[in-house]
């Protein structure tokens, strides 16, 4: 059974003309790391706020563990890292974590242990009893926020832009943390436009644009859509570069592939999916290309994200207004 189900969720804010979220449906399985990606204003944060019962959906239904997100019994199950650090700045780190530990209803005898573990998990190396929240840098705040999100031993964690303000070490820490969630069977919903960490650990990703989910699926389903492959072959003595290029282009066209770059002994090919690429390679071999290496450069999700955004921009200009307004 899915731990989170969203059915035809829509939300429009009174002051904005367009809908922030339109008819979005998806579900998240227990123990899954679910990524919500998309450009700014795509409605990711709105969906998250609806899941957390911070804002009320205009229509549609949300179930978390079979209950409404407004249900009191859902609250102890969840941990949340907000996008903007909206923490009680006057508290010391220790006070702040105590505050959230108490709020989450965990037994008080485990408090010190939980706080210690959470701080170790986020690799925060400052004295939690001396440093106040307001004295922390952006990256440290983010770590405190993460510690806060896991302090109540939640079963579902909502992370909104977990990497913002983080250094590369922070990226690694977050990846480790998400992997640990997987081990412990904790469900995580990660909302991001920085994709490095999402790409590596997410089980499934929903790509959002203009309040809608444009694509939903595993990492593979994204990767095959755009794949660049560099093919190398033993030099062909009898043909010059122009001839090679000509024959490559004509062969590629037959199989819906594009030659991005070609030289005497190698070429970079862009293919729509695996099947087309395979048949193209087969064709080349038939034409006496002695292929010894095929290096597939799976495109970064970021590039895809940019392409998709560009495409969407061209096709759908009306969605340009800021939805979060």
């Amino acid at each position, binding site marked *: 059974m899915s731990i989170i189900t969203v059915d035809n969720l829509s939300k429009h804010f009174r002051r904005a003309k367009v809908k922030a979220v339109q008819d979005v449906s998806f579900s998240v399985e227990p123990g899954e790391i679910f990524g919500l990606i998309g450009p700014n204003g795509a409605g990711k944060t709105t969906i998250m706020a609806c899941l957390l019962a911070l804002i009320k959906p205009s229509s549609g239904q949300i179930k978390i563990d079979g209950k409404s997100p407004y249900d009191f019994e859902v609250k102890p199950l*969840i941990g949340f890292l907000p996008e903007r650090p909206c923490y009680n700045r*006057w508290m010391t780190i220790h006070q702040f974590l105590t*505050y959230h530990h108490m709020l989450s209803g965990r037994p008080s005898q485990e408090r010190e242990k939980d706080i210690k573990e959470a701080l170790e998990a986020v690799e925060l190396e400052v004295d939690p009893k001396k440093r106040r929240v307001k004295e922390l840098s952006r990256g440290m705040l983010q770590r405190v926020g993460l510690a806060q999100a896991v302090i109540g031993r939640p079963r579902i964690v909502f992370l909104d832009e977990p990497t913002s303000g983080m250094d590369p070490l922070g990226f690694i820490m977050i990846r480790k943390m998400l992997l640990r969630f997987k081990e412990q069977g904790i469900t995580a919903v990660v909302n991001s436009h920085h994709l490095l960490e999402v790409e590596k650990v997410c089980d499934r990703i929903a790509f959002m644009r203009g309040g809608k989910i444009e694509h939903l699926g595993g990492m593979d389903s994204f990767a095959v859509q755009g794949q660049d492959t560099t093919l190398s072959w033993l030099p062909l003595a009898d043909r010059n570069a122009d001839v090679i290029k000509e024959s490559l282009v004509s062969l590629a066209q037959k199989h819906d592939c594009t030659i991005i770059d070609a030289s005497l002994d190698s070429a970079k090919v862009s293919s729509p999916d695996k099947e087309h690429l395979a048949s193209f390679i087969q064709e080349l071999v038939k034409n006496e290309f002695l292929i010894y290496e095929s290096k597939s450069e799976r495109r970064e999700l970021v590039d895809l994200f940019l392409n998709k955004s560009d495409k969407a921009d061209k096709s759908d200009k009306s969605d340009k207004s800021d939805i979060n307004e």
Partner: protein
Amino acid sequence: MNKPSLLSPTLIRFNLWEKIRAWRVGIPIFLFMGLPCYMMLISVIDSTEPELAAKNVWHIYDNASIYFLLAYLFISDGLLTGRPTGEPETLNLLFTRPITRTCYVLSKFFCGFIGSSVVLLISAAMTLGIATTLGITENPIDSHFILSIFLNSLIFSSFYVCLHAMPSMLGLIAYLFFSGCQTVGDIMSIGYSQNAPTFFKHVKDAILFFNYWFGDVFPSTVDFSLIASSFYACTELVVVYLSNLSLFLFFAIFMLSIREFSYGAD
């Protein structure tokens, strides 16, 4: 599994104990506690009529702004954060925790009430000590005095909780409107006109209308001995008092419930 409770021990701990421990709130609170003692000391020593001076000092305890400020200190995080409105954005995170909005309002209200009444009672006890040492035998401390402190702390805490629960702009407008309605009454009683043109008389009537119906929404301190003095006084004062109390708590919970915490936007 947790059951929703009416008062959150966490909020109470962090609004009372942890706040007093922080010097930014602790020092003003101790100043508040000590101020009447100090006033008693200097005004009695340097006075031709110490009994009268002492009596005037005791009037500090029916000053509305004292109650309002104490409610502010205990309910808002304003002083701790250095921002007058406190940190309304922390509510986003708070309400993802197992805490109902009713519980939030009631806990804050409770903290304001307990905080300000305890501070004022300790302060009154200290002032009484000073007065007795200086040889003032007459003091107004009786059950009515103590009850008045409790009643005033209650009404001012509920009022401040109501303002606190509203978005800051709306809270400010509500504050200005109701305090304005109350103040115009005082202003109108200073000057009066015998031969003003009709138009001005109508304007005056309109102002007085607002003063009559909304002037007592902004709480003023109640004196329990007044309530006890006559049936007529009792009926009106008590109804207005209770009506204000329920109005503030209702609006606090209501405003917090319809507020949307879309934390992605300001």
